């Protein structure tokens, strides 16, 4: 991937299968329902669960379907506020009414004190160069233990990788999903990063409830 400006500039399709897309700012490749725009949202969330809550609230308010691609994006300090935080992005079928109570960016438009964070999130998502995917086609079917092939075939996840492993896992390798699957955009592909788990299986590198800084194990 070549890097792109934070906003603006047409995005051409990444993989060869994309074909031409509608030109225009923060336009992503077509999915099943045709060309999409990306809506960036920034509520200054400091944690991933907080950001996911914002993402789902906005998606619900806009009446977006469950499989809508929605992501979280890290925003460094100074870009849209004094503290580093997490913005969100949603693939939307076209122009949508501005969401309430959050800074946002879509196409050439933006509003709110953290609009720069929202625009950054939208640009990363549109270019598929960054972001952690929370909702995506098939995400609610990824539960229990499934094979790598079943995950790829049954969802928008295009690739599964194992950390610190030279090659990808075999299609039959079993993935313990923990009912918590958060792929990331990497090399233009929706990629699920995993790690070795018990019994020769693998499990997403992101666990559902990571140990907080000072966890009480008494």
């Amino acid at each position, binding site marked *: 991937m070549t890097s792109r400006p934070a906003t603006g500039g047409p995005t051409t399709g990444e993989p060869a299968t994309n074909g031409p897309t509608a030109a225009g700012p923060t336009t992503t490749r077509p999915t099943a329902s045709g060309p999409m725009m990306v809506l960036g949202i920034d509520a200054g*969330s*400091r*944690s*991933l669960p907080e950001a996911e809550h914002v993402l789902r609230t906005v998606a619900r308010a806009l009446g977006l379907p469950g499989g809508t691609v929605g992501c979280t994006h*890290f*925003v*460094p*300090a100074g870009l849209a506020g*004094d*503290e*580093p*935080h*997490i913005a969100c992005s949603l693939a939307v079928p076209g122009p949508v009414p501005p969401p309430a109570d959050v800074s946002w960016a879509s196409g050439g438009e933006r509003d709110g004190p953290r609009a720069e964070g929202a625009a950054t999130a939208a640009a990363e998502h549109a270019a598929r160069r960054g972001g952690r995917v929370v909702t995506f086609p098939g995400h609610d079917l990824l539960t229990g233990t499934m094979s790598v092939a079943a995950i790829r075939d049954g969802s928008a996840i295009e690739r599964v990788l194992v*950390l*610190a*492993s*030279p090659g990808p896992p075999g299609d039959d390798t079993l993935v313990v999903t923990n009912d918590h699957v958060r792929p990331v955009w990497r090399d233009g592909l929706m990629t699920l*990063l995993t*790690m*070795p*788990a*018990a*019994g020769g299986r693998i*499990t997403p*590198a*992101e*666990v559902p409830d*990571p*140990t907080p*800084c*000072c*966890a*009480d*194990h*008494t």
Partner: protein
Amino acid sequence: MGHGHHHQHHDHSHEPLGEGEAAPARDLTIPDEDLSPAQLSRRRMFRRAGLLGAGLTAAGVLGTQAEAATATPGGREPKDGYLWLAGDHHIHTQHSGDGIYRVIDQVRHGNAYGLGWVVITDHGGATHAKIGVDKVNPDIVAAREAIKDTLVFQGLEWNIPAAEHGTVFVAPGRREVETLKEFENSFDGSVKGAGANTPQNEALAIAGLNFLAESVRKRRIPDALFLANHPARKGLDSPHEIRGWRDAQPSIAVGMEGAPGHQAAGMPKPHGPGGGRGYYDGGPGADSFPGYPAESYKTFGGFDWMTATVGGLWDSLLAEGKPWWITANSDSHTVYGDTSERGPGSDFDANGRYEDPVYGGVPNTGAGDFWPGYYSRTHVGSRTFSYEALMDGLRAGRVWVDHGGLISGLVVRAGTDGHGRRGVTLGETLHVRRGDRVELTMEITLAGRPNWAQFVPTLARVDVIQGDVTGPASDKDAFTTPNTKVVQSYEVGKSSGTVTLTYRLGRVDRPVYVRLRGTDGRRSAPGLLGAEVDPHGPQIDVHGDADPWNDLWFYSNPIWILPRR
């Protein structure tokens, strides 16, 4: 087998210095004329030994061989001129919001498991700063009285502003508590609400280190050290922050945990927590350094990614020719399989501590920690059995670490060919003529007896890792260095007795460093930077199935070799 003699600049002329009096001698910000005669004598000795302001490893490398080590109350015998005191600088008690045990519980266990020094490091925070830091002190003082052959330091686990946790500890003195308290109230990220990764908070962390250095300089406290804990766990310690701490106060900020505690956290369910070894189960968050790869959040053979990656972050620091040492600790909060429960009627917020623990009758298989000394050990070469000498040894980098009692002793010397054993030891710098042949001798005392899991570990392999010293990093966020790799491996395959290995570096025509690593050989894989860099490095730990007793490693700190120009 010790060598029974000293090799360097033994100076009989200086008078003994009391606690606190030695520190100014090595602080070059204090002019000679402001020193007492004894301090001046000590400084001259440092100068003659080339240990002050010289070479690439200036500020913090203050290996001192001035006094012969003697046996301690614990019956420990010196080896290679030093008492090698195993210890742990990361231990929690009932004065931590997530702790349970009394100070004496931790100290007694650490002592029983062979530790010569421990640091009590309860979490910094509002309640601790207000109450706990005071209340814990009498318990520490009592533990020093009760357990004579283990040094018990008071410290705290600092919430480093804009970063991870770190151990801060001081040498005992009349003002240790008030100094720690002022430090915590002024510079703790939790107390100050300064956790976010902002330039302002990064500056507050540096100010905290400056405060400690100033407190030592003014002799308010005899000595202070800082070490970064579980540095890669959540990606919070960026490379430039680590370099910033080191460069701001190299005599205070001396290193990091090469291996985190919580080593039982990967014990499989149902008889263990079934999590990530070291509780390294997180991923990037808002405050994480964005450049860190996804695998940096995991452990490798129980070690932190910064240390486990040959040619990685730790090596990129060493390649600058500046001291940065690694340690291995328990981070003991609640012990795997222990039957204690928190004391009934506890009110931590009101009392600054939990009530004393009680017998609960049920083994806690959800706990991920070991007692201090049970699994993780930081071995420090100390001139004498004293608080100051221990801190000096740690500051000098005369340190190696092991897990599960993999080996019992390690003596490393670098010298010119034929004189290897008369050269320098861990943490030190060997000055040679350009083109001199240099050899590294390693005398390893094997386990020889069962560890606390009741088996005698076998040392399968020892690796010598060598890197070029390339000077200060132009990119403060660099976390790789290109010319560090495993240069020699030795198959050992023994569990008792002593093995002596010699590695010949050949003619040395440029500054280099060497460090050692050894393993039981049960879990190896090509290193993250490729098999040509590290053919048999530690494997990424299996989430939920990492029995730490079946994957043992030791690591040494480096020795630098500097040819004269």
